[in-house]
């Protein structure tokens, strides 16, 4: 089979020209990137200067971000661009005197210290242009997998890479693929979980917006490996840009023979459809997600049967996280051993984190698994507005890591040892102005609102736990309330039907583990040490 020869649109940018990239990720668009792109195109949009719109470059809170590249020079990144500043900056580059204004240092750690595997092409290619993705190596892994490998070999390679699901659980991806491959039945399905409902998580959005073809490629390879002909991408309704770019990417890939009937002339056919969520966190849970895809009420059902046994319309179903699919093409291209060489034993490869909260730079970081938390913070420029107090991982299902454990290697087992979870990669940094009982209260209210309401422990337990936390915040709680809260938490963990209810108590138990004295001063002394909770008879409700 012939590997498709991509047409390189960026070619005009070479040969001494300037290549100007403007980030068009959601955060940069929100701070005005569209105007910057327009101004640059109007002023400089002709050869030998190329102005392209890309996806996310990483340091989102510094947007609009632009990058200027010139042959023989290191790329220069500029932050907080206005249309005018961007034009002036380009003019200065052309004149050979690059300005200092807004320029990030060449070794700006947020960008320089990343190991980008999944996000390899994010911020480099034009997400709306299939040719741009293909010029950067997109769909080469697909051609290799369906041209030169058997489905067994593909599953074996993914298994050998040691890749674990990036949706939170860390289940071995190769094992899951093999289960679906070996399952009987004519109809099988591949589903990408792009629900990403955790507060503070935006890794999957970044990949879907910035390099949609990477997700499609991973899914088609998965379909080939497990013997499925149909795929679904479930995108949360709050991500319209991701949905729009994915929709366009599906159409383009279909026209180019990379999706649909007889892919690349191989005889293998695979189709992908988009499903947009309706705003429920619980729809990220795999059985609820499948119910929603089938047009039913998005609420979990008891497992077993697992999706691999009985999923969509009764068929064996492979469901993986968006980032998990994002790892597939590089593994096929470079081999399992290459992937395993990154990270630590049992924790192969890289992980994407979205870091936010009290840090100098908020945005999206990709690092090898096992990187110490301290290094992630350093890459984000350190804590802002005070000293480090804690970092929340795993969102509403996770817990916090206190200052004494900043050297913890960020991998599945080490985080578990500290009573939290890796989760999907949201990392919320909190400085010493934050009240930890207030944090726990926030997450419990979140879970109360997001409980699907099917099982009694989660539906009623979150209501009562949120009330108890309200009482603590208002300085009205007694020590009985405290023990009742702890009892309720253990009860929900043990008895809830799905992961939402089981994990809803984690933020409370984790803050109790590391910051119990803060709870005690709320209860015993009726005082909030940080002053966040309004006391003195003024309940701080919402």
């Amino acid at each position: 089979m012939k590997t498709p020869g991509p047409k390189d649109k960026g070619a005009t940018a070479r040969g001494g020209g300037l290549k100007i990239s403007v980030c068009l990720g959601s955060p940069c668009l929100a701070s005005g990137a569209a105007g910057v792109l327009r101004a640059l195109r109007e002023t400089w949009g002709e050869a030998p200067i190329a102005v392209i719109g890309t996806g996310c470059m990483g340091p989102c809170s510094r947007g609009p971000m632009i990058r200027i590249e010139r042959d023989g020079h290191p790329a220069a990144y500029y932050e907080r661009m206005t249309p005018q500043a961007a034009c002036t900056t380009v003019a200065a580059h052309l004149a050979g005197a690059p300005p200092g204004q807004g320029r990030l240092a060449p070794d700006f750690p947020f960008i320089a210290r990343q190991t980008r595997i999944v996000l390899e092409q994010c911020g480099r290619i034009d997400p709306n242009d299939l040719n741009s993705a293909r010029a950067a190596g997109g769909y080469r892994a697909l051609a290799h997998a369906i041209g030169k490998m058997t489905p067994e070999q593909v599953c074996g390679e993914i298994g050998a890479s040691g890749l674990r699901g990036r949706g939170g659980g860390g289940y071995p991806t190769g094992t899951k693929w093999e289960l679906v491959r070996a399952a009987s039945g004519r109809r099988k399905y591949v589903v990408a979980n792009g629900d990403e409902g955790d507060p503070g998580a935006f890794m999957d959005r970044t990949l879907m917006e910035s390099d949609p073809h990477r997700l499609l490629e991973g899914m088609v390879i998965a379909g080939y490996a497990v013997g499925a002909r149909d795929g679904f991408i479930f995108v949360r309704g709050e991500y319209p840009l991701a949905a729009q770019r994915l929709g366009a990417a599906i159409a383009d890939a279909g026209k180019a023979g990379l999706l649909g009937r007889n892919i690349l002339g191989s005889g293998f056919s695979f189709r992908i459809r988009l499903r947009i969520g309706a705003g429920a966190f619980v729809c990220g849970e795999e059985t609820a997600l499948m119910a929603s895809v089938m047009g039913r009420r998005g609420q979990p059902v008891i497992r077993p049967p697992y999706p691999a046994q009985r999923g969509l319309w009764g068929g064996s179903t492979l469901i993986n996280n968006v980032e998990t699919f994002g790892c597939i093409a590089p593994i096929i291209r470079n081999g399992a051993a290459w992937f395993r060489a990154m990270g630590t034993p049992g924790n192969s490869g890289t992980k994407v984190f979205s870091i936010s909260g009290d840090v100098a730079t908020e945005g999206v970081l990709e690092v090898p698994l096992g990187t110490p938390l301290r290094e992630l913070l350093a890459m984000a420029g350190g804590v802002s507005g005070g000293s480090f107090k804690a970092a929340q991982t795993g969102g509403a299902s996770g817990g916090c890591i206190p200052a004494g454990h900043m050297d913890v290697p960020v991998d599945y087992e080490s985080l578990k040892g500290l009573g939290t979870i890796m989760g999907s990669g949201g990392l919320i940094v909190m400085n010493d102005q934050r009240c930890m009982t207030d944090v726990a209260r926030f997450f419990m209210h979140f879970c109360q609102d997001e409980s699907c309401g099917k099982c009694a422990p989660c539906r009623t337990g979150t209501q009562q736990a949120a009330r108890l936390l309200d009482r603590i915040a208002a300085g009205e709680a007694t020590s009985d309330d405290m023990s009742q809260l702890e009892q309720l938490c253990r009860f929900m963990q043990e008895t809830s039907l799905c992961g939402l209810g089981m994990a809803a108590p984690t933020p409370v138990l984790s803050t109790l583990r590391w910051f119990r004295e803060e709870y005690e001063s709320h209860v015993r002394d009726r005082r909030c040490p940080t002053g966040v909770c309004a006391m003195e008879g003024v309940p701080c409700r919402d």
Partner: protein
Amino acid sequence: MPRLTLTINNRSVSARRGESILSAARRSGSDIPTLCNLGGLIPAGACRVCLVEVAGYPRPVPACATRAEQGMVVTTDTERLTAARRMIVELLLAERNHSCAVCVMNRHCQLQDLAARLGIDHVRFAFISPQAGVDISHARFGIDHNRCILCRRCVRVCDEIEGAHTWDVDGRGAASRIICDLAQPWGTSTTCTGCGKCVQACPTGALFEKDAPTQKATIDMERLSEWRRSRK
């Protein structure tokens, strides 16, 4: 019919393949409490009062929705399970407005029975007391949401046995609510056949027959579902 053997409360029990732990346990004389389960309906595993411990499983499992497996060792009555069951019933009593004195099902209610069986004499939690509302627009029946424990037996019986699918659940979490058709008064429903199965299936006084207090659970759903299956 293939059979298997498992241990329930130290007693060796034989079960049909595919049979639930609950049904095997009941046959062997271990009475596991239930609320959302109703023989003949597809189990929902929602209320969690039937949780039992299975050796080697990290968490308790719902007996109504878990199949008996060869060699399983099941315990249905540990202190941990009783504590969890009490917690569930107290939480349900605190969630809406269960005023037994004025309820059509007083002394026939499964929630009340279970509270008595567990020896619950007070509720540790704050009563939430929502304004849940009543719908008496139907000529013969009524629904008092204050007494609803969201077990979904009405939803399932109307869908699985009567085939009308009049009931569904709207909202989520604390805002979950049983609705009729497109959230309209029951009296205006175009799908309800007036068969009364939902009223029979409801374990509490939430669904009731007007002017006919406390005659419930007369229909054997298990029989009905078998009859329905045999028709197919």
